[in-house]
């Protein structure tokens, strides 16, 4: 699953519903209808469809409404079982020892550890390390305390090797080679530099400035990890906190020397991944090794400090923009020189200019490597990084020309959907009454209010590989089965809702079985592709089940299958709505085994159900205390299109979550490593600051209902793209403090205000 690399230039989404519609076909059915007890010949026109459709929005009873998540009660009562909670007979707890230095030669004596009571294994994994946090040993004990004691009993000596953990060290003369070919990747170039420079030179307003964002952590509440249930023999089960149930199967099988059909993966509930959990990971591989050696179940969940250093990150970046703006607010040209900091990885950065048209453009993007763990995909890889500088450049140039920040955005956006969205968030946040629309507020010594904007884009379409079963039991119960995973995003509810809608039932009438590799296959959840991959497959299965059930019921209802209707918990013929059976009565006519139907994501049928390409806009209102540098976000407004919302609450949750996560990125989050000592300084939830309850502003999340595409589209990623940019712009707008380096901590705000001597 490739979700890491952003797709060059951001795509141009098409919100036109016609782009995706197929011509509507109908046919007429001759039938009889009772009119006052007298049967009469009539003709009924029915839709003649070659596959499932979502139908008219006004007819939907479950979809496009506000649904509570079906697993809410088990989660809030603690009954939901996460990987971390799995306890098996004879299980041992494993712990990793991670190298505290970015690069070192390591010698480890495991003898003392092995002699401790309750300790079952102590294995050296690595003797020469390349990144801070690289696992160098694993121990296992009968309890987690035994494992902790074993860790402490390892006799370790570190011989630090030269390292580079930040930009300065990586690019210094004589820097150690982080990767074989040096500390810089191959630059990606686009556009004609001379042409862009000339356009900028000729523009009335010009700017050259460097913007940077730090390395951020995914900070999933559940750390990475697995429980491997293997006791020798020919079978194994892996419980895993993953975004892709099926990916683990083959990997575990290979490591244990089994076949894929001997391994089951289980992801009952999952505590977040944000892009960092796509495969078994090195921790999972180590757990397999221990399980194979001990022939006992192994529980290996990362401890929080280890999670911070070895489980991926969102790459930082540093971009120098040169840009010129015409008097009418259109950009004349833009040159961007970007460096990405993804540790041993390549980092990610959507190609500048981000979304906006910028006249003549040239960009150069290069990875700078350091001895830290490789970046992984993180919610909209590359987009938040690219958004930050781009949105700032627009504001800074607009101020030079005394232009309205909203109008300048519109002037550089061809797609009118963004115009409409920007105007909506502007209205909601009070832009039109705001006093500082064309120049920043004063550095007054008091508290000042500012507003900022940002926009986003994403794909969000799905792809093949997902299949689904729907079963109707004779007692009326309904089960939908698909091996997909619910990361906390609500896919279990989505699956349930689609089937309930199909049969005119309520959410509670359907049970979803997910998160198990013995169920029909499903794709991984990355890049907002889950909705577009899952919903067509589930809809297909539900539709097939409905057609099969209608065929079965037609003779019983003395009608044709095409006229059988399911609504409000009842089943009837369209010709005779009064002669209805209850759902239970209808199901009672099934054979003992009930009714089973299968469906899948089929390219042609899915094309009528899912779409691709979304727009979003956000606005933030902040208060800056110009005496202390304190930034408070007072309000955020986000709007997002997503075609047909399956669950409006879930869509709004994604928007709210995106805004909160971007607020945290704007104000607090940053990985800190001491470059000289090579130590991670804030690898815990106290010093790595995440926004908490008091930071949450008034939030308005708006689903863009002007988007009438009858297609489902994932929208988790774009929700996180523009919030931090809007906040930084709002700070500038409030008081003239332009902080070009996130996070917007008081030290930087005070410096930007010129208040530090």
């Amino acid at each position, binding site marked *: 699953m490739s979700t890491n690399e952003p797709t060059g230039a951001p795509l141009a989404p098409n919100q036109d519903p016609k782009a995706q519609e197929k011509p509507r076909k109908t046919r007429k059915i001759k039938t009889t209808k009772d009119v006052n007890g007298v049967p009469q010949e009539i003709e009924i026109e029915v839709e003649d469809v070659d596959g499932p459709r979502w139908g008219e929005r006004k007819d939907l009873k479950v979809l496009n409404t506000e649904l509570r998540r079906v697993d809410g009660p088990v989660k809030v009562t603690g009954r939901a079982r996460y990987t971390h909670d799995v306890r098996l007979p004879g299980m041992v707890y494993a712990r990793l020892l991670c190298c*505290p230095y970015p690069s070192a030669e390591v010698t480890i004596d495991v003898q003392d550890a092995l002699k401790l009571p309750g300790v079952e294994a102590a294995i050296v994994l690595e003797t020469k390390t390349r990144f801070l946090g690289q696992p160098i040993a694993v121990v296992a004990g009968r309890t987690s305390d035994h494992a*902790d*004691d074993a860790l*402490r009993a390892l006799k370790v000596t570190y011989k630090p090797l030269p390292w580079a953990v930040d930009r300065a060290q990586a690019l210094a003369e004589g820097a150690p080679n982080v990767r074989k070919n040096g500390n810089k990747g191959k630059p990606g170039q686009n556009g004609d530099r001379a042409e862009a420079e000339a356009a900028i030179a000729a523009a009335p307003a010009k700017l050259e400035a460097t913007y940077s964002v730090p390395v951020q952590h995914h900070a999933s509440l559940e750390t990475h990890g697995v429980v491997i249930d293997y006791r020798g023999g020919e079978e194994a089960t892996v419980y895993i906190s993953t975004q892709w149930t099926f990916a683990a199967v083959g990997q575990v099988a290979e490591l244990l020397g089994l076949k894929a059909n001997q391994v089951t993966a289980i992801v009952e509930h999952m505590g977040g991944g944000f892009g960092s959990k796509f495969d078994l990971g090195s921790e999972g591989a180590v757990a397999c090794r221990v399980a194979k050696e001990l022939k006992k179940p192994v529980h290996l969940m990362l401890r929080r400090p280890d999670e911070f250093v070895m489980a991926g990150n969102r790459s930082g970046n540093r971009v120098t923009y040169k840009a010129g703006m015409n008097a009418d607010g259109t950009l004349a040209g833009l040159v961007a020189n970007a460096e990405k900091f993804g540790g041993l990885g390549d980092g990610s950065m959507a190609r500048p200019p981000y979304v906006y048209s910028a006249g003549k453009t040239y960009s150069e993007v290069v990875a700078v490597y350091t001895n830290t763990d490789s970046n992984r995909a993180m919610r909209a890889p590359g987009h938040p990084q690219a958004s930050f500088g781009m949105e700032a450049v627009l504001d800074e140039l607009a101020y030079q020309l005394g232009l309205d920040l909203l109008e300048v955005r519109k002037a550089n956006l061809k797609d009118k959907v963004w115009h409409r969205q920007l105007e909506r968030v502007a209205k909601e946040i009070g832009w039109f009454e705001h006093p500082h629309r064309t120049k920043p507020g004063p550095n007054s010594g008091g508290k000042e209010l500012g507003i900022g904007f940002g926009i986003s884009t994403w794909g969000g379409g799905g792809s093949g590989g997902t299949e689904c079963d729907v079963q109707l039991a004779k007692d009326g119960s309904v089960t939908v089965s698909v091996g997909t995973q619910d990361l906390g995003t609500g896919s279990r509810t989505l699956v349930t809702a689609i089937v309930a809608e199909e049969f005119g039932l309520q959410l509670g009438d359907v049970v979803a079985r997910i998160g198990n590799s013995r169920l029909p296959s499903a794709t991984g959840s990355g890049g907002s592709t889950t909705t577009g991959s899952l919903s067509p497959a589930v809809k297909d299965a539900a539709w097939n089940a409905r057609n099969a059930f209608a065929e079965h019921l037609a003779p019983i209802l003395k009608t044709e299958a095409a006229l059988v209707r399911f609504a409000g918990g009842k089943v009837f013929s369209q010709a005779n709505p009064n002669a209805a059976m209850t759902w239970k009565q209808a199901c009672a006519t099934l054979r003992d085994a009930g009714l089973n139907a299968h469906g899948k994501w089929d390219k042609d049928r899915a094309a009528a159900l899912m779409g691709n390409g979304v727009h979003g806009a956000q606005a933030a209102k902040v208060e800056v*205390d110009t*005496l*202390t*540098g*304190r930034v*408070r976000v007072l309000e955020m407004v986000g709007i997002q299109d997503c075609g047909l919302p399956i669950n409006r609450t879930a869509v709004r949750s994604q928007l709210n979550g995106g805004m909160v996560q971007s607020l945290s990125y704007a*104000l*607090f989050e940053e990985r*800190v490593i*001491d470059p*000289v*000592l090579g*130590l991670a*300084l*804030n690898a815990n939830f*106290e*010093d790595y*600051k995440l*926004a*908490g*309850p*008091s*930071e949450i502003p008034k939030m308005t999340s708006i689903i863009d209902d002007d988007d009438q595409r009858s297609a489902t589209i994932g929208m988790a990623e774009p929700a996180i793209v523009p919030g931090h940019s809007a906040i930084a712009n709002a700070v500038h707008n409030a008081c003239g403090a332009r902080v070009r380096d996130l996070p917007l*901590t*008081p*030290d930087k705000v*005070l*410096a930007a205000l010129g*208040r*530090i*001597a």
Partner: protein
Amino acid sequence: MKSFTLFNPKSLGDAVGALAAPTSSVKVLAGGQDLLTEMKEHLVEPDKLVNLKGVPGLDRIEFTAAGACTIGALVTVGALEEHAGVRERLRVLAEAAGSVGSPQIRSVGTVGGNLCQRPRCWYYRSEHAKCLKKGGDECFSFSGQNKYNAILGGGPSYIVHPSDLAPALVALGATVTLKCSTGERQVALERFFTLPGEGDIRRETVLRDDEVLTHVHVPAPAAGMQSTYVKFRERGSYDFALASVALALWRDGARVKEARVVLGGVAPIPWRAKAAEAALAGAAFEAATFARAADGAVQGAEGFGQNDYKIPLTKGLVQRALQSCG
């Protein structure tokens, strides 16, 4: 963490008795909010904990008729914050208590533990950094990541004292009772905390290993006291102070009679800003005075890079604290 034995004394006598002649390393345990973290991170590895929680009589807040207040060491920060008498008569203390950590931390952390807690400096908290505080010979913050470190106090260690209660209590002129198996002593809180240059650099207070802090005594404030605690934290939900100001103020009409200004988060001890107090005493209660007091508060302050901002920040907070008494 390393295994230890837990001793649950039923009386103060038993508690100090257990500290008297330790055969192995012993630590006093109160709410455990700080100590257990230190143990998990292997910064301290005691063999034995003396758990004060079962010791009777240390969890009360009592006012005398004259208005003096005695606070038991086991009173939780939350109980202090919510106590009606404290809110009414010792506002700076109630506000300081309310600014500590999060509700969860306040409900468990105790007053004694809060005053005896260890520094949060991330070099001190990193097992692999052998810093001055841990017996090494360098304070890494000086040339390292010093955004949260001290601007006052003069080193050679640049930790900041993390307690919010301490500046408030120093502003109120509090004393503490320290008890050992052979007796007890009263120490003014201002003398309880020691600068790194003064005493054992590995400690922040004069508390000895065989002593328990049993009570905090706040004398009855002179009539007419106005007081407030202004704390600046990066993250509102829970955070230690980047800088804070405890202010107690007496006015005589439009003039300041006397003021106590104590800073938190900027020095290794709660920092009595005497120059600020002098600038206020006898001066008109007005913006120009506030500005002079703000300058006085940071007299001698020195940043070394990433913590430079604490100087204007502290000045701003002093002004804000004074304005709020207007």
